[in-house]
């Protein structure tokens, strides 16, 4: 399958550093901030944001991991049930400034699921969205507050974020052919 690398390891690191600064600037520091990463890619990125923010600000903000399977709107359409992975949000979200993190923003449906799930944990002060890649083709009125890179894609293409936490070298690759993003 033809593929094209659109972000290198260095570019990913720079994007994470920039977004961490933007999060702190926009929210005037780390007070009441908490990160929630969407499994699996977003969870690893959220952990990196947490480390970067600690490096810059000296405070470790809370980090939660979210699996959105139970909130999907396509469970009646797809085949066998997808695996459910563990959701770990060990802090109260009420009153928190939540930064939701995902690797690729596409239709927006995953983000809708994630927002519904977060609100079942409490009433945050607000939710902002940070993504490494925005590839367009939104099906819901959702917009990211922080974007690593905007990539114009066709619906037939597949955007894959490889991360070293999964045993790969950091990179973002576009494949031609059937999309697997959701």
């Amino acid at each position, binding site marked *: 399958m033809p593929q094209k690398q659109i972000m290198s390891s260095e570019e990913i690191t720079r994007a994470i550093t920039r977004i961490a600064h933007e999060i702190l600037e926009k929210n005037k520091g780390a007070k009441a901030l908490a990160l929630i990463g969407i499994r699996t890619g977003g969870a690893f990125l959220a952990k990196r944001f947490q480390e970067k923010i600690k490096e810059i600000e000296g405070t470790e903000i809370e980090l939660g991991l979210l699996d959105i399977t139970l909130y999907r709107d396509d469970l*009646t359409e797809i085949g066998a049930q997808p695996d459910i992975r563990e959701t770990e949000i060990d802090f109260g979200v009420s009153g928190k400034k939540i930064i939701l993190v995902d690797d690729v923003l596409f239709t927006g449906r995953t983000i809708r699921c994630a927002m519904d799930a977060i609100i079942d944990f409490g009433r945050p002060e607000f939710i902002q969205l940070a993504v490494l890649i925005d590839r367009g083709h939104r099906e819901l009125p959702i917009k990211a507050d922080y974007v690593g890179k905007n990539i114009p894609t066709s619906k037939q293409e597949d955007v894959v974020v490889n991360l070293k936490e999964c045993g790969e070298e950091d990179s973002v690759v576009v494949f031609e052919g059937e999309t697997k993003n959701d």
Partner: protein
Amino acid sequence: MTKTAWTRKDLVGLKDLSREEITLILDTAKSLQEVSTRPVKKVPTLRGRTVANMFFEPSTRTRISFELAEKRLSADTINFSAATSSTVKGESIKDTVRNIESLKVDIIVMRHPASGAPHRLAERLDVSFINAGDGINEHPTQALLDMFTIKEKKGTLEGVKVTFIGDILHSRVARSNIWGLTKMGAKVVVCGPKTLIPPKVEELGVEVIYDLYDAIKDADVINLLRIQMERQSECFFPSIREYANTYQINRKVLEVAKKDVVIMHPGPVNRGIEVSSDVMDGPSSVILDQVTNGLAVRMAVLYLLSGARKKIEG
């Protein structure tokens, strides 16, 4: 996580399940445990699905556990109990179930005194069946929650020694556990009065030890079975008191057991018969953890079966 996909319409027993399918249920249950600890203890996963709980035999734990599991997943539920239904007017079980199916119910959770009842209905009808106990045959979700609890307490099922004590003959809990535990690599021992040990039970891969002390001395888990007064029409042992004297788990008996042995019981417990009150309420007992875990296990089964239903509905 496992790569197995769930394709079965029904869960009627553990006899036919593979090790991978059992692992998938247990892993899914592990992920679902967290839902019950949230401020809003509910997820929208089974919205618009209907589950009928049909209990032709009394039940507290299993019925409440299933109903709560259904509600936590946002399914709509209807409850049927034989005593207040047309069953007392003589309607056959198959007719009753077909009427329920005509109401576009997706899943039927069934407990029935006849062994094999859910199996026969599941073969003939499109609706999904979950066996919540059939006669003396199987009680798969109880065995799954027992296995989940053992895995939680001991970290694994592989090589764990589990001793069942009591009425093995009439126990669907023991039977399902034997199917499941042996597939998962656990060592199973059964112990009880000779009259209550099924003939040829060794052929299922379990060891029979009649002496209580020998049976528990190197057990990691002791799973006590209820003496089922309602199934004791014949005389299987001389008296309840003699049974308690010979087979009761109490502090004195536990002196020979491993220090970290865990005591399980599917409930309802006959306090002072299978187990003494102090042991039941003591630190080794995980009886109430079993109840908590049962909820997550039943949510997992409901979730997985709903996926398989999509094929039927096309």
